[in-house]
């Protein structure tokens, strides 16, 4: 009986993130520089989906799926990348020098990310390493500014492309 109770409690604990506000979608304004072919550089809108199971004060992880749609240097429509990866918030603090930014109290939680970067025009496997230095969060929102990434060719170790998200707003709906 004790084991069953413990088992049920454990299951509830594991399942609890599923009922908290863990799922979010985001919109960002991206620019991407293709290092090998400048004409393929592009800018536009980045759509992202985020799953954040916990809210740890240090090292809080989340999973993200991102896709970008924009126009290249010839103003032709392009879908430069799809990314699947994880982000880790370095820390989350309330007392920080950026509180002037918002009317409400926002937490400052800069994050690192690591992702598989799929570029349909590249035959190489790309790994993206990103940093979001100005990431702020509230219960329902993330606000990010100047988030940047570098996509490396896993085979050669060289930079394939890099990009910046000037702004990205993520809304947690469930």
């Amino acid at each position, binding site marked *: 009986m004790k084991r069953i109770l413990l088992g049920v409690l454990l299951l509830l604990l594991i399942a609890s993130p599923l009922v908290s506000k863990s799922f979010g979608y985001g919109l960002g304004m991206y*620019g991407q520089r293709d290092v090998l072919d400048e004409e393929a550089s592009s*800018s536009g809108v980045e759509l992202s989906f985020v799953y954040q199971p916990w809210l740890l004060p240090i090292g809080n992880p989340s999973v993200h799926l991102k896709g970008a749609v*924009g126009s290249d*240097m010839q*103003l032709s429509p392009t879908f430069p990348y799809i990314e699947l990866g994880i982000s880790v918030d370095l820390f989350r603090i309330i007392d920080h020098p950026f509180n002037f930014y*918002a009317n409400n109290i926002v937490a400052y939680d800069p994050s690192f990310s690591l992702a598989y970067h799929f570029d349909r025009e590249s035959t190489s496997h790309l790994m993206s390493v990103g940093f979001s230095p100005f990431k702020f969060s509230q219960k329902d929102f993330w606000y990010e500014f100047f988030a940047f990434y570098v996509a490396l060719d896993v085979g050669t170790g060289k930079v394939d492309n890099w990009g910046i998200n*000037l*702004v990205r707003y993520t809304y947690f709906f469930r």
Partner: protein
Amino acid sequence: MKKLYISLIALIFLPVSLFAGTFDLGITLGTNAHWGESFYDSSKLTLAWGVTVGISDDLELDLQANSALVPQFFGDTNIAVLLQKALLGQRSTGTRVAGLGVNTLLGAGLLFSDYFPGKFLLPTHILVSLTPLVVGNPISTKRERAFTVTLAYNFITTQVSVLFDLIKYDFYVVGTYRDYL
């Protein structure tokens, strides 16, 4: 000669009284995009930065530099100078009372750029700008300007282009409620 100097000084200082009442100064950060002159402007992602100067309760002067981040990081910069009027009411009350929290801005000005057959900055465009949504004001220390559309007429090349600022944040350092306590 003395009369001329006095007249000149009077001409410089008299219009200042038109702007009496409020003064504020904010730092602007945001996004910018330029469409329609890709032959001269190859930027794909542009950072807007500058200052916004309140010169009366419903007029402001915005100095905005637009610096390309992609494809060249800070590769190209143009400068917009706009005189803007708040259409829905006072942009600042000049008191500790915050006043209007939502506004609309209509402005006109000049763009200094190298978008002509040359490689130096010149006044090149006449600008007419509309910011439909302004949230916040100088008194409350912060302001957001969204969906700014600016028509730009290049009077050197006779081309028309569009500037679009998705969002800009103004952080006020002078003329906030703290200065009226």
